[in-house]
């Protein structure tokens, strides 16, 4: 066991962890804003991956160039989901918590079916793009460029989300989060804020999906596997906390990488889940969650 090997494992964990963090950030944003856990979050990421795959398959456009287009597309899908389903789910008088869970869950199954309908059930991968197969070496540590680009973009998107929090819109978002009824009195359209929140959440996970498509397979179940990690990340970081999502995402990436390297690759998620449960026992609201 050399220092270089340890660094290699740590670097791999960090690169993946930043992607997890961005996936979780979208989920956390929506939850923090309106107390809704989006169980279709992984499927939104999958939609972004399929969108990249579809355009690439037609004319070979590099996934990196598609980033803005797909992010805007997912932004629109998020807004459409809010107006079509979530606004209705929020207005039910009875059993609101369960209705929200199962509406987004039903949506997840629907999206999975729709993707299978259009692209079939087999795994696709995007090959031969600009970054594919390239690595750079830094002090004996090999860093694959697609993962490097993904984590860099995810970090940038994260910074973008935090920057939005400082704008007028961000303050309206925060105000709506604090008291969704009082904001109407000062002229904030709650419905519009919620819709934009969904747009941003979906757009964030869309960015993660695009970058992931550069080095990860695309298939009808890819969303589900990332979604579980995303829930764990959000709960570990604390629901609604952006900083929490970032710290928890990196932590989970590292735990996963070290479990896979030193214990058993097929049990890497067990290591992640064990850490999550241990932290929650000590701190039920997550690392940075507010009560």
């Amino acid at each position: 066991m050399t220092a270089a090997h340890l660094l290699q494992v740590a670097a791999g964990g960090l690169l993946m962890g930043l992607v997890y963090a961005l996936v979780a950030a979208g989920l956390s944003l929506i939850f923090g804003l309106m107390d809704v856990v989006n169980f279709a979050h992984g499927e939104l990421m999958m939609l972004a991956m399929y969108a990249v795959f579809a355009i690439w398959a037609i004319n070979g456009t590099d996934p990196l160039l598609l980033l803005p287009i797909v992010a805007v597309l997912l932004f629109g899908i998020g807004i459409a989901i809010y107006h079509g389903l979530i606004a209705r789910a929020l207005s039910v008088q009875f059993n609101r918590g369960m209705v929200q869970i199962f509406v987004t869950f039903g949506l997840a199954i629907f999206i999975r079916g729709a993707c299978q309908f259009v692209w079939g059930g087999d795994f696709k991968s995007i090959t031969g793009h600009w970054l594919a197969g390239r690595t750079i070496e830094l002090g004996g540590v090999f860093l694959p460029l697609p993962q490097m680009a993904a984590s860099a973009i995810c970090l940038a998107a994260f910074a973008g989300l935090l920057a939005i929090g400082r704008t007028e819109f961000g303050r309206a978002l925060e105000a709506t989060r604090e008291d969704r009824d009082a904001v109407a009195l000062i002229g904030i359209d709650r419905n519009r804020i919620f819709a934009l929140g969904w747009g941003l959440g979906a757009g964030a996970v869309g960015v993660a999906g695009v970058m992931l498509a550069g080095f990860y397979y695309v298939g009808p179940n890819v969303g589900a596997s990332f979604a579980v990690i995303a829930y764990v990340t959000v709960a570990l970081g604390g629901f609604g906390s952006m900083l929490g999502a970032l710290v928890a995402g990196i932590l989970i990436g590292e735990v996963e990488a070290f479990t896979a390297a030193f214990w058993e690759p097929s049990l890497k998620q067990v290591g992640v889940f064990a850490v999550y449960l241990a932290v929650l026992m000590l701190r039920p609201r997550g690392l940075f969650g507010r009560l």
Partner: protein
Amino acid sequence: MANAIVKRRRQELVVGGVVLAGLALLPVPIKDVYTQNLIIITVLFAGLAQAWNILGGYCGQISLGHALYFGIGSYVSTLLYLKLGIPPTLGLFAAGIVAGAAALLIGWPCFRLSGHYYAIATVVVGEIGYLLFLNWDFVGGATGVFIPFKGESWAELQFKTAKLPYHFVVLAFAAATWLAAFWLEGSRWGFAWRAVKDDVVAARSLGVNIFASKMAAAALSGGFTGMGGALYAQYVGYIDPDSVLAGHFSILIALPAVLGGVGTLWGPLIGAAVLIPASELSRSYLGGSGRGVDLMLYGGLIVLVALARPQGLVSLFNWRRKSDVPAA
């Protein structure tokens, strides 16, 4: 007032008896094996959803990890049968006890959490169970366990081709869960659970032990789910982590109760009667091509019912009782 409740409960019991008799007589007109199989699966899920309902409906703790108890139950009875020769009629109860104990063991740390934190913790615990079984060679790992056919036997719940005996086995299971829910509804526990669900602080101020209430609900709910798992394993004759422990199975167990009506006696049965045939039929007619149309219909149905009937399908039947309810 108390009289009205006693009268209503007596009515429920009569309706329950009539429904049970009706279900028991279903095989008289229905001889077709495919339909019989569909009914067996539906009734089994009605029982499983009722088991989930004890914790998720009455006590309000939304568990999205019940596949773990189902899987534990199916593995316990199957392994007892294959490795020690204990007949599944006994193994069934061992399955219930082990799954109930597992629910207590998991509830002990997880009930510190509430709301979404609890729901997500149950997802995670379920995933851990799935991954551990997948990598555990003693229980067959990813290849699973095949239950060989050793001859017709009620004690071992093995019937060569006939579906009929299983119809009565799962019906007894579903009836047992229904009766348990019926009895619990009127018991001290049932009142404590509903208090915990509605308002934890108020319940505590009335002297309800929150933690003990949740644990009792979890043990019963997990135990019944484990028994359902044992029956399922013996019915299909083959189990592997993907078929009994996978995460989506937890949702399949919870869905009939949620769409039928959580915290109601009839919700799980009504939900199962709508959902299971809808998913099985769409899968067999549309899913064969592997093109996902069945998933789209199924997902769409879940969204529609949840939005259109948030109080559950059972509310469709409530018109006749409106006159009994004094204006609030």
